[in-house]
């Protein structure tokens, strides 16, 4: 299901994140890239170089917006000013879909600038789904929510993370941005089977996939986005594609960023897995 209502019926391939150290190379060399993902908040400004660069990118490339500060899971009402700015950017980029995280990060108008895990409860799912619906209705663009990596589980939770994700996206009738690396990181930190997660989400709602690198420390695994994708994550990616079919995929590399060519080369490895079976042919596949 490469094109679906959750990614605006597009058929995007492998993209990479637009990052400051690569601006000059991209604008000068105009490399062949299927699409770029931008961090929405970096361009929700009024002027200056960020918007100038964005406009030049938009002349050449397809751009999809990815947010880090909508905090769908916050108990507060949606921030109208934030939404207004976001909508202005949506109009500018003509993003076919927009993603942000299934998390919270602010309360009472105070921000942590982090992607904090939700308590997986039915009440939290309802609040979150309501906010996603309101945002989508205002922004008039399909929304995909991304699972975050986490280092804590709450006593308050009433279900697993994948059950919570499913509950939210069904109630909001929205898409999923499935971050395979985040599932792996969380599975290492919480001791669950990542394939159980991958097998038990509504696959028809997956509009986009994220892959990235992570780092293992003595007592926990951290979602660092600072090196190539590791083998277990590629295996999970291949498994997910069997369920979803080829899906727009984005490599995240946010720290210790190497040359553009190296990042692009790493992202294009995902193409190898896009030759996987279609969902229909693999419907009986198990791990």
């Amino acid at each position, binding site marked *: 299901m490469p094109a679906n209502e959750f990614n605006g019926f597009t058929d995007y391939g492998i993209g990479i994140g637009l990052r400051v150290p690569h601006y000059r190379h991209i604008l000068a060399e105009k490399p062949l890239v299927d699409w770029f993902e931008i961090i929405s908040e970096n361009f929700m*400004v009024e002027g200056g170089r960020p918007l100038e660069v964005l406009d030049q990118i938009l002349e050449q490339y397809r751009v999809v917006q990815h947010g880090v500060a909508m905090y769908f899971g916050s108990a507060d009402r949606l921030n109208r000013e934030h939404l207004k700015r976001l909508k202005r950017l949506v109009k500018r980029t003509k993003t076919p879909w927009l993603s942000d995280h299934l998390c919270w990060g602010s309360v009472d108008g*105070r921000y942590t*600038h982090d992607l904090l895990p939700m308590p997986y409860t039915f009440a939290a799912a309802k609040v979150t789904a309501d906010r996603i619906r309101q945002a989508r209705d205002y922004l008039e663009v399909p929304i995909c929510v991304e699972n975050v990596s986490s280092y804590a589980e*709450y006593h308050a939770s009433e279900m697993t993370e994948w059950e919570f994700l499913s509950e939210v996206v069904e109630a909001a009738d929205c898409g999923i941005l499935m971050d395979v690396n985040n599932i792996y990181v969380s599975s290492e930190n919480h001791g669950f089977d990542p394939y159980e997660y991958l097998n038990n989400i509504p696959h028809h709602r997956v509009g986009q996939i994220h892959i990235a690198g992570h780092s293992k420390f003595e007592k926990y695994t951290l979602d660092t986005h600072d090196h190539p994708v590791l083998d277990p994550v590629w295996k999970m990616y291949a498994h997910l594609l069997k369920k979803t079919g080829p899906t727009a995929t984005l490599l995240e590399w*946010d720290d210790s960023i190497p040359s553009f060519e190296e990042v692009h080369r790493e992202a294009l490895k995902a193409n190898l897995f896009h030759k996987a079976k279609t969902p229909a042919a693999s419907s009986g596949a198990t791990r």
Partner: protein
Amino acid sequence: MKSLEAKPQHNNVRSRSELKAFQQKMLGMLYRPLSPDWKSRKKTDEGISVVKIAEGLIKPNDRLTSFERLEIYNRCYWFRVLDSLYDDFPGLLALLGNRKFLKLITAYLIRYPSESFTLRNLGSRLESFLCEEPEYASPLQEIALDMVRFEWAQIIAFDEIAREPISPKDIQKRDPEKLRIGLQPYLALLELNHAVDRYLIAVKNQEFDGLRKEASNTSNAAPEGKNHRRRLSLPKRERVWLAVHRYDNMLYYKRLEPAAFTLLKELGKGTPLEMACGKAIKRDGSAKQKGVLKADAFQEKLQGWFAEWSSLRWLTLPSPKK
């Protein structure tokens, strides 16, 4: 203190209000400042056990206690916000040194935590905080205040909105008594008591990478090791009239004559052109010689300034009144 030893109460989240209470409690834990060795503190200021609070919120696993899992987020929060201020105020850091700077921005963030979706605005109240609590920069509070104003002006100049510059036809045949001219919102005019502009150039010559880091999901490194520079001489005490602006999306700062500064300030306040020029002429030293006003000399200067400011696209039509 028997109650502190009691079994922790688990926090339920069965309604929006309980979700809010849960998030308020978590936020309170994350905002708690770290110890000097970058660890979570085990007691609140009131002596309440954070270990017990963590046990009420977070499950332990086979490798980490509830407290240690909470600590990961507590550290990430502080590393991220401190790192952002280290990036935005390199001049202030160089001026105060790492220890004092860290103490200042930690106290600042405790009083003024972020109220914006973007870290870009994190330092917006640092000037106010320094006015309220000058001892954090003692004995350099005056220089520090100049530096904060100067560095914040650069953040504004970087990405604030640009309006259409004024064109000759916008002002042709307009009565100077009534003509009002606006300034670009990204242009900041600063009247300073120290040469912090030259000091910052020296700082950036020592260490300048010119790039803003992307925010990744997890920040795991303390903001240290950024101050291995040799100590520079302090900024000279002198009166500086400065314009901080951008041109072709590059940041610049430019020293101004006092009269030019006055003129721009007046125009920015909405003073009509003729009156603004009148105030500038009073400020202009070279226009007075032996008590005689040299109008021609000032006229020439004015023409030069307006030509320059037009070429820098600083002048706009005034912003419409709300």
